[in-house]
């Protein structure tokens, strides 16, 4: 098991309550929120499992989020790439990048980044669900309907599979 990733569990029932009512309808341009982030957060029942981030990476991630919200996707990718130079194996960075790629309609790269995030990530919890939901959306856009379906199912298992150990 990767010693570097110290899993941290934070309960945010209040946030969950706020999100729970949203219908999973596809909104143009907002696919990432409606089809990846919100359902993943619902899946995880408010349980977020993520690694402790280096403060420099945290700062860059925050800047990427701001840029993303402002619709500046290239700028957001730039921040994430800088963060990845510092922490090349941070599953959250890779997943965040996958979601940016999704918004840029670069589905193949969205798929690749999400898979890599899953491979080196905890393979459980919210990030796992985001990984597979991103893969599902990307596959759908790449005309792989059955693959998309498999990924969707796999996402729902993120809460009951435990990471493999050796």
């Amino acid at each position, binding site marked *: *098991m990767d010693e570097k990733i110290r899993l941290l569990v934070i309960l945010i029932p209040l946030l969950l309550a706020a999100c729970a009512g949203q219908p999973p309808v596809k909104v143009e341009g907002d696919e990432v929120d409606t089809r990846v982030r919100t359902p993943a957060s619902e899946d995880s029942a408010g349980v977020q499992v993520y690694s402790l981030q*280096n*403060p*420099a990476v945290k*700062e860059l991630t925050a800047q990427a989020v701001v840029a993303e919200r402002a619709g500046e996707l290239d700028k957001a990718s730039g921040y994430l790439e800088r963060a990845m130079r*510092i922490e090349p194996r941070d599953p959250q960075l890779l997943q965040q*990048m996958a979601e940016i790629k999704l918004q840029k309609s670069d589905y193949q790269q969205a798929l690749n980044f999400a898979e890599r995030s899953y491979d*080196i990530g905890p*393979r459980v919890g919210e990030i796992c669900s985001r990984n597979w939901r991103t893969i599902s959306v990307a596959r759908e856009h790449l005309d792989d309907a059955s693959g998309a379906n498999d990924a969707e199912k796999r996402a729902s298992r993120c809460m009951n599979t435990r990471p493999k150990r050796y």
Partner: protein
Amino acid sequence: MARKAVKSKSKSRRSRSKSAARQKPGLFRRLFRLLMLLAGLAIGIGVPWTVWLDIQVRDEFEGRIWDVPSRVYARPLSLYSGKPVSKRTLLLELKASGYREVTDASAPGSYSVNGNQFDINRRAFIFEDGSKPATRFRLQLRSGIIGSLGGVSGSEDPGLVRLDAAEIASIYPLHDEDRTLVALKDAPELLVTGLQAVEDRQFKHHHGVAFRSIARAFVANIKAGKAVQGGSTLTQQLVKNYFLSSERTLMRKANEAIMAVLLEWHYDKAQILEAYVNEVYLGQQGKHAIHGFGRASEFYFDRSLQDLEPQQIALLVGLVRGASLYNPRRNPQRALQRRDQVLEIFETTGLLTENEVKTAKSRPLGVTSKPRSGGSRYPAFLDLVRRQLKRDYQTSDLSSEGLKIFTTLAPSEQEYAQQAVSKGLEDLKQRGLPAELQSAMVLADVASGEVRALVGDRVAGRNGFNRALDARRQIGSVIKPLVYLLALEHVDDYNLITRVKDEPISLRQPDGKLWSPENYDHKSHGELPLMDALVHSYNQATVQVGLKVGVANLIRKIQQLGIVVEVPAVPSTILGAVELTPIEVAQMYQSLAAGGYSVPLRSVTAVLTPQGDLLSRYPLRFMPLENREAIALLNFALTRVVEEGTARALHGLLGSKTIIAGKTGTTNERRDSWFVGYTRDRVAVSWVGLDDNRPAGVTGSNAAMRVWAGLFRSLPIEGLDLRMPDGANFVWVDKQQQALTDPSCPGAEQIPFIEGSEPQESTKCLKNQSRKNKESLWRKWFGRKD
């Protein structure tokens, strides 16, 4: 002075003939004809001549002054608390970025150091994602990492600071010229005013030619009986530099004067002065002329022009009169006299005070003993940058001037890599290997494929044959992992402990010859587990496996890993009778090191226009390979090469037990030595051999691995992450019995398997253990005591 004579003659002739015509009307017709003839000659020859000179000089001027080179930057070093960085590395990076050590870092571009505490004043800088103002911060190193990072006041925490990127070269992406241009506004004030004081005091007022200066020089020369003074203005000198020729004819002087006047007509003083500062001839390095103060400053002082001290500026200004005569390396005494003479002029013209001149005169020349070779410290890396720019960018984009090119080079790691090669080969010579051995090295970031260092020659900075990119050599056993990777992809036939045969084998080659590969130790080792054949790099077993998986598939695999060259489809390819360059080998192994997430190796991350707009970016793109579980298994086996196989000396060389994957390679008659190794974050390839491909007595572990270790001794090493992807798991097995076993049983080892390929059998020991466990469970459930 000759110019003056010509001009005044024609003037007086014209006025005389005019007045003659008025006084003697009888001669009017004849004189008018003569006048017309002269005017016709003047117009017919003089005008086209002047126009031609005008075209010439404007072409030259505009062709050069606007040809601002592109600046190439290294990657900026990110500093944050927790970052692994040694004091030596930090000092190297500061030096590369042109920082000066001072006692109080109050000026941007300086730092002070006290034990392990650094106070750094970062310059304002345009990074690839925007400009950042100057900032002063303090950092504390604690046992190899940045323990704390904070503002100087101690209150603000910058969190993350980037050092301004080291400027590693200025290049014309489409040519091979190397210059360091300076904008007039960036040139030191003392240089700009001092040049005028020494060379042309009338510069601000004349129109290209200063008659008073010419007269003064004329008188001085007459008095001395030889040419002791020049009356050329800066503008004339500039023209002279454009059309460098040794002839000193009247005609040439006249042309120079006309062109100088024309230049002044077309351009303003600042433009002319800027051109002069960048154009004037200031020295010679072999076949290459040193033009301009920017380049000269690097050439003589290994510093940027902006960082020069008054006496150094004076030396350069003095060189204008005669770069060869006052060459400070060859004629230091004469250069010193000239420098002091210039300093005195600075004083009399009020540019420096008496005290400043006194201090400046007391200083030594300060010239480096050897000029920096080729203008850049990193010729091999720049070679890669040039090629990738040409490959990935539009020619029209690259022809724009003054681009900022951001690259992936890590100056400290480049320094370590070059030292590892230079010192490593020196050490191999001591061990009895040939003195003329050559070497190449490529160091890249595993996840991003960014090239951090590239060494193409044993001599630092030598700009010649770039072995890292161009030495095409047989790769030998470095190919073997791909053979085993192919085998592991056949889940039904192979796992890491499948028995393979290491026994004599003979094959008919396409040319009809019989090929009977032998092992390195000239022995056959019989049946053994697949991974052991790789770990000990047995040739005969590898050929057996290679023939089963197919040479054609092996070639396809090489291509999948990003190699585009033609590979011969013959059995000997299985043992690496394939010629690849070190960077191609690095590309192949990047894919493995990144667990199958292949990225093309890259040296350029972004190109910015001079205004700071992003011209183009290379975003990070993965190209995932299939069967990544098999790659994970292979990576595990390659860590065993370092633990117990052909690279087992590596831990000793590194003085560390960190988990590293590696593979040695040796070719026939010990011509080539290869080592490829990777940690969690870095992959590096080193090659050692002779340029003429003679046998060199080298093996993978006796040469290239030593050089590799020389580099990694200086780098922070994170052990490889051996966690298996979905679809593969570590299982306790007995390798020799090819059976599942219990951790407590003898011969038990944890080895990864792709799901479904685990052994079906169990060891006797495991069966006994299970029985015992079952019994104890039974007892536990039913409350009986053991």
